[in-house]
């Protein structure tokens, strides 16, 4: 596995076409009819089937990297938010408290708290604020504060950049005051103008004045009109949630594969629930939020509900964001067999037939090639034919794919992480997170996941993952994106978490699993039976999933052999018998 992952990398980010092709031998029948009733068996044919992945484009253009890290931002100043809460009994534009020139985000928060006295306290309790989560099943301390992933790896020492997606103002280092209510950012989740943008590097603040962003790029991001933004507040729309969740991993569609900016105004094809001309769900329709605690978690997902029944969401102490919370587990009215499937198979497996259906998602990230500079000693970017980065001096090699067939695994909701202090085996592919599950535990269902593969730095002496200090402002002598020196970057990153860096580093292959649960397709696009059972392509979706007997795929080979041999011998026997009779009859006639 380690070797396979390694060999697929190419310096320019394109992947070698898989050379193996699967051949499936099929037994074919030919039926001759003789007086309605003669059956003759036996002929075999082979059908070669290619397993080739959809090829991503070859790199086509090279351009100098701007001095600032390459990121994608939400589109500027869009009009008409997707969901306007017209039923609200309050028009914040009429509130005296908001009729003033605000100088900063915290000033707006002060105004909000005058009426919403408990709001900041509630936000302080949330994962959106704390960025930490103690998993009760595994005892692991998780959350963005602690984990190392195989995208940008870790926020430690890079907070000013990463906290553009924190619901707060000012988290630039460990001195951030998590108890200060004014540090809560109400606007990012509640404003509806689409003009409020928290830029990376500003520690969670939006630009209050016009700024060049990225620096030296010549592009200007306008200072935010806080008064207009504050007066626009309402329920969180898809755009609000998407401002961070669509852009996870450093750009649009990078991280999840089932969350990207195409969900801002999706059609029915992309998301049957969010369909802008149909149900037009907001995120909160499923992630039914009370007291600023947003349910639904990928740290402890609900893989299989206790009883899989529909329930009064928000009242019961159960996850309101599961499919079953509304649909129960037997929603197929015409077909009991499908309901039976749902006992073992997550709804998502059939109803999200592919991920990255809106636009390509990043599938691979190889940090080990980062740091190459051009002839002038400058970082550069190579793009693939679709315009996505295939190489970036700051980050290494990438690979994007769209319409990706998920990987399928038994999953019971328990996830184990490789954390900062976990010892790893560098000869193996390191599982950044591992999904628990089995066909026999009664807690698992077969889930679709995105497997994100990468290579990232680890300490050869301590056999632990390393944290690189990547983002730095002007004059930072250690930030990788400034000086392209791994030793300095890793030393600074580890120091930020009071950890020692031995000075010996390598790159280890890693995998991270992401449950696929968004972008539910219309039922016409759900998987067909033969995409798992007796697939025409010879390769079925669940072929690699253990512990299931699947009609059309799982025949007992010994029974098949014995059965066909028995039928064939019988056929040969009667044919021989008939032949002898014919010869004997001719002889008899001659005599």
């Amino acid at each position, binding site marked *: 596995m380690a070797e396979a992952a390694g060999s697929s990398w190419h310096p320019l980010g394109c992947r070698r076409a898989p050379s193996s092709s699967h051949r499936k031998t*099929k*037994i*074919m*029948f030919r*039926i001759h009819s003789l*007086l*309605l*009733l*003669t*059956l003759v*068996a036996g002929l075999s044919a082979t059908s070669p089937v290619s397993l080739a992945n959809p090829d991503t484009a070859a790199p086509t253009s090279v351009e100098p990297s701007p001095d600032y890290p390459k990121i994608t931002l939400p589109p500027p100043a869009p009009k008409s938010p997707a969901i306007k809460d017209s039923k609200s009994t309050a028009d914040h534009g009429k509130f005296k408290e908001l009729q003033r020139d605000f100088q900063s985000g915290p000033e707006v928060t002060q105004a909000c708290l005058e009426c919403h006295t408990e709001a900041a306290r509630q936000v302080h309790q949330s994962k959106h604020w704390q960025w930490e989560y103690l998993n009760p099943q595994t005892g692991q301390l998780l959350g963005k504060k602690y984990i190392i992933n195989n995208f940008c790896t870790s926020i430690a020492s890079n907070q000013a950049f990463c906290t553009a997606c924190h619901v707060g103002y000012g988290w630039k280092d460990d001195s951030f005051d998590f108890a200060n209510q004014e540090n809560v950012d109400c606007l990012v989740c509640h404003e509806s103008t689409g003009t409020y943008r928290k830029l990376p590097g500003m520690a969670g603040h939006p630009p209050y004045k016009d700024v060049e962003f990225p620096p030296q790029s010549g592009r200007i991001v306008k200072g935010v009109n806080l008064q207009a933004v504050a007066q626009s507040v309402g329920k969180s729309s898809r755009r609000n949630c998407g401002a961070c969740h669509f852009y996870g991993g450093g750009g649009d569609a990078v991280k999840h594969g089932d969350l990207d900016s195409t969900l801002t105004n999706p059609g029915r094809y992309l998301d049957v629930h969010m369909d802008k001309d149909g149900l037009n769900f907001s995120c909160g329709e499923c992630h039914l939020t009370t007291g600023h605690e947003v349910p639904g978690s990928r740290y402890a997902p609900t893989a299989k509900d206790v009883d899989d029944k529909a329930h009064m969401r928000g009242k019961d102490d159960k996850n309101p964001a599961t499919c079953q919370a509304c649909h129960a587990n037997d929603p197929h009215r015409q077909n*009991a*067999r499908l*309901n*039976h499937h749902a*006992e073992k198979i997550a709804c998502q497996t059939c109803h999200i037939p592919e991920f990255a259906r809106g636009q390509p998602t990043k599938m691979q990230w190889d940090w080990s090639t980062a740091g190459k500079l051009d002839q002038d000693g400058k970082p550069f970017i190579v793009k693939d034919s679709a315009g996505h980065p295939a190489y970036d001096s700051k980050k290494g090699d990438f690979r994007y794919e769209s319409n990706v067939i998920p990987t399928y695994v038994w999953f019971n909701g328990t996830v184990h992480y490789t954390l900062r202090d976990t010892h790893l085996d560098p000869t193996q592919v390191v599982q950044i997170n591992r999904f628990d599950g089995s066909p026999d535990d009664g807690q698992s269902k077969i889930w679709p996941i995105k497997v994100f593969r990468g290579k990232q730095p680890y300490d050869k002496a301590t056999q632990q993952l390393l944290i690189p200090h990547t983002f730095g402002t002007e004059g930072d002598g250690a930030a990788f994106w400034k000086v392209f020196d791994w030793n300095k970057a890793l030393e600074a990153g580890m120091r930020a978490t009071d950890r020692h860096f031995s000075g010996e580093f390598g790159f280890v292959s890693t995998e991270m699993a992401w449950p696929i649960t968004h972008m539910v397709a219309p039922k016409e696009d759900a998987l*067909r*039976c*033969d995409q798992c*059972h*007796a697939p*025409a392509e010879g390769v079925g979706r669940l072929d690699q999933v253990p512990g299931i*007997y699947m*009609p*059309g*795929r*799982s*025949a*007992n080979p010994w*029974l*098949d052999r*014995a*059965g*066909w041999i*028995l*039928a064939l011998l*019988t*056929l040969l*026997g*009667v*044919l021989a*018998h*008939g032949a*002898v*009779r014919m010869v*004997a*009859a001719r002889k*008899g006639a001659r005599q």
Partner: protein
Amino acid sequence: MSQRIYVFKRFERFWHWSQALLIISLLVTGFEVHGSYRLLGFEKAVSWHTTLAWSLVGLWVFAIFWHVTTGEWRQYIPTLSKVDAMIRYYAFGIFTGAPHPFKVTRLRKHNPLQRLAYLGVFLLISPLIWVSGWLYLFNSQWTAWGLNAYLSLQWVAFFHTLGAFLMLTFLIAHVYLITAGHTLGAHLKAMITGWEEGEA
């Protein structure tokens, strides 16, 4: 002196031919569901297989009723008398033009080997297919019926497939032995018209 005997009643012939059609179609769709080849596509094959199976159930309800009420079930009471003669005939006599050792009468329309073979189909192959098929069909009810702990789909499918192979084997032999009557076409003609040329 030859004599025509009305061996197969109208219902019997209807039963035989519709059952033949159903069994062949079930074999064709069943082996597709099994994954042996691709003809209709899995979903359609499953759907047809299920419909055909229920049709066969319906036909059997009538057939059993008919056999019980007419007493024709006695035609399948096994006997060993003349089995050796039949075997010798198929093994040797049939090649030398020896006379068929069995005389069809209205009360004995099947020769002793036929009796044994059909009884085997009714008592072994059919129950095997039926029981496993029903369990297969009602797989989703196992939990409700309390069967989940005792059954696995893998073994139910195994026995269902085993039954299918046995039925296929029977079918091949049966189709051939149609030609092994008093004359090449005698059996076939009897099952179509109902009349057999017997000897008085």
